[in-house]
């Protein structure tokens, strides 16, 4: 084998191994892709026309509730969330339901069944799962007026826990 060809092969092999190693390091360093601050999104609303952009709510306390119609605990926590929304809506607190991994008609049926009046947006597939570090639904995040996460609730939330988290976020 000519020396030049052999050298080229060796360089290519080393470059390939180096590239794969780099990918591995990048993946380990970035973990699941979860971002430190809330990732902005613009998503279509399910219970009203138009889109909702998360960044437009900056300066308010935001309660993000990730849910899906097929998820039983999502239905169990829905009355508490709707109750708190009605209680806090005049206090500069916005609730946003984020329907994910769900069919749109089923999501609309869920909204009707639980009489949800706060904005619910639709995220197709898993696009927000990585940035928000979701491992399942329901999950609720509270974002303070400064646009930073203040509380994270994986799983179904209770009325008392969410109320406490909102009050804490309003104080920040």
């Amino acid at each position, binding site marked *: *084998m000519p020396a030049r060809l052999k050298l080229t092969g060796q360089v290519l092999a080393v470059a390939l191994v180096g590239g794969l190693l780099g990918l591995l390091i990048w993946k380990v360093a970035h973990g699941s892709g979860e971002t430190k601050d809330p990732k902005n999104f613009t998503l279509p609303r399910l219970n009203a026309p138009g889109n909702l952009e998360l960044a437009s709510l900056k300066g308010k306390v935001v309660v993000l509730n990730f849910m*899906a*119609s*097929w*998820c*039983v605990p999502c239905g169990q926590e829905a009355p508490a969330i709707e109750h708190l929304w009605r209680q806090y809506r005049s206090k500069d607190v916005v609730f946003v339901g984020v329907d994910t*991994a*769900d*069919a*749109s*008609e*089923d999501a609309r049926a869920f909204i009707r069944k639980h009489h949800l009046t706060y904005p619910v947006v639709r995220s*197709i*597939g*898993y*696009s927000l799962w990585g940035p928000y570090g979701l491992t*399942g639904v329901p999950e609720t995040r509270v974002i303070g007026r400064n646009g930073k996460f203040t509380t994270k609730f994986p799983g179904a939330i209770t009325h008392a826990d969410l109320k406490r988290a909102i009050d804490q976020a309003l104080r920040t």
Partner: protein
Amino acid sequence: MLAASVAAAAMVVAAPAAALASEQHPTLAEIEPEVMCLVCKTTLDQSDSAFANQERTLIRSLIARGYTKSQIKKKLVAEYGPEILAAPEDSGFDILAWWLPIAGIVAGAVALAWLAWRWSRGRRGPPEEPSTTPLGPDVEQQLDRELARFDA
């Protein structure tokens, strides 16, 4: 022999017809192995979760409305995202998922064939020419002396 040929010919004719029937009038059982249960990370036919049952209900309603298999898959992608398909689509960027493994196998086969050819050529090649470098006068004299002594 004749019967086997007839059977083979019948299969060749019947297979596209069956595929067309499956495309035009799919059943839930035909679609289930080709789509995923997003929550369980398995194909739909392997799951009995709440998500899977809701997905089945949607597929059944689409079948009842006369959707073809392609239309059902398209609708599922629109509703749940491309992750809902068990295999990537054979168009656009996803086509790479089909062609890259084939390209890898072909490249590997070509590399192996080339190495085998090099190896066999090396083995069959003519023996190397003996060195024709002339001996120095000292070495030549010593060699003559050694040979003379050997002959004696």
